[in-house]
């Protein structure tokens, strides 16, 4: 555990060593997030309420998504790179260390761009989402579950590269999750709705957590916790089994 903590500290030190670059990259992502918020505000201003979603609830959804996305992609940056690392044989240096490989890989690198997501999400919640103490506590809890699920999903789809020999599944999973997570799930029916709760569980990353903040429901909370746990376990198992099929690329410096 001490080794992992030191790894995270080093990763942070690398990022804050260039404060101007950090600020610039965070700003770019915050502008990106702002554009999406503008889109949704324009959309709901034009169409009113849809499927129980309105301007306020979509802002809450965006706050959850960007905060969880910022944590997952910012702090556990390698989660989305596991497929590429597996295919390129970039894990050699990790396997030689006296720490658990998956936590080390996840904590090794911090992406400053996505810290902008994190800052934006928290800022959006604080400014536009009525942050009472109860709602703030709920926000923190659901973001934690959402981050766990998103990270688990990214590791799981990335680790499939150990078996498939190609890393596209991880990239496709990453883009699909972030894209679909931005939409209010109740607007969809049929196959797409089932997809959003199962194969690409984007509904659990944003829509379900946002609803939980607005109105607590034990069933929904259990489903969210269960989905996060299942994906975290599945990701760990897939990565561990995948490592047995890993082929060295003789790359010792990049993990």
């Amino acid at each position, binding site marked *: 555990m001490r080794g992992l903590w030191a790894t995270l500290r080093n990763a942070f030190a690398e990022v804050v060593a260039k404060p101007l670059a950090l600020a*610039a990259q965070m700003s770019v992502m915050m502008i990106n997030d702002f*554009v999406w918020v503008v889109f949704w505000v324009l*959309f709901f201003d034009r169409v009113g309420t849809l499927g129980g979603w309105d301007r306020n609830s979509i802002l809450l959804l965006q706050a959850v998504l960007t905060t969880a996305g910022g944590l997952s992609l910012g702090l556990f940056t390698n989660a989305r790179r596991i497929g590429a690392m597996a295919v390129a044989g970039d894990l050699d240096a990790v396997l030689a260390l006296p720490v658990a490989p998956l936590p080390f890989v996840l904590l090794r690198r911090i992406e400053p761009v996505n810290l902008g997501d994190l800052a934006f999400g928290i800022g959006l919640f604080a400014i536009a989402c009525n942050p009472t103490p109860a709602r703030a506590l709920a926000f923190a809890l659901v973001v934690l579950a959402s981050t766990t699920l998103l990270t688990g999903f990214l590791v799981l789809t990335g680790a499939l590269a150990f078996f498939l020999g190609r890393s596209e599944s991880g990239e496709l999973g990453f883009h699909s999750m972030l894209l679909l997570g931005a939409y209010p799930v109740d607007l969809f029916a049929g196959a797409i709705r089932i997809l959003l709760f199962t194969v690409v569980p984007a509904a659990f990353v944003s829509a379900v957590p946002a609803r939980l903040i607005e109105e607590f429901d034990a069933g929904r909370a259990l489903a969210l916790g269960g989905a996060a746990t299942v994906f975290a376990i599945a990701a760990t198992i897939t990565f561990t089994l995948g490592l047995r099929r890993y082929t060295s690329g003789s790359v010792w410096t990049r993990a």
Partner: protein
Amino acid sequence: MTRRALVEALRGSAHRSLVDGGGMVVSIAFYVVIVGTLSGLWRVAVHANGGELAGYSAVAITWYIITSEAAIVSVNARHIEDIGADIAQGTVAVELLRPASVLGVRMATEVGRGLPKVAALWGAGAVVAAVVAGGPPRSATLLLAAPSLVLAIIANLLAQHAVAAIAFWIRDAGSVWFLYLKAVFITGGMIIPLELLPDGVQHAAMLMPFRAMAYAPARLAAGYWEPMLFVEQLVWIGILGVVASAAFSAGERRLQVVGG
């Protein structure tokens, strides 16, 4: 020599794009997910507003989205970053040794790469639209939409080269692509038809080149017979071509003086 080099660059990259079956399948899969979701959202909105939104029916807006997305997704979103990296790492300096225009060869290569992709994506999108909403609202306008898609790609690539040329001076165009893409999102009409924007934003979008990259072919595919969009694209291509060419010429002179 230059003309032959451009034709060969276009032909070669188009061929490589065609034979990359895996890459094409992934692109199509991603595109289908995007247009399925985004057009689904807009159809729900149209139905909730009495079957029409700013003149767009559910069918029209579905064809709009499959076309605007095809125009943008078929071009590498991070091309600005890639060009910037090539400038910073000296690849462009090496390309200066060729007896052909650096910008010309790069444009021909990227257009060649984009053409098979846009054809495949638009075809897949047409199938999605036909299944989830219906056939094209006005088949005749598709005859304009098809060449308009090609012009959209050319306009987009020229603009990306013009923007990426700043790397000749600042050595890093890394994050600019992000901001560029976001401008295309809203003011280019990629995810929202321009008629649905507030008046002020709509007027601002009319003055920007981004609408030539997504809105123009999408509006045509949505069943609106507006040939002026086609003319507008040609004008923007002319302007962007001059800007990109001037930026690259100045940048290349700087490379020759300062070094790559």
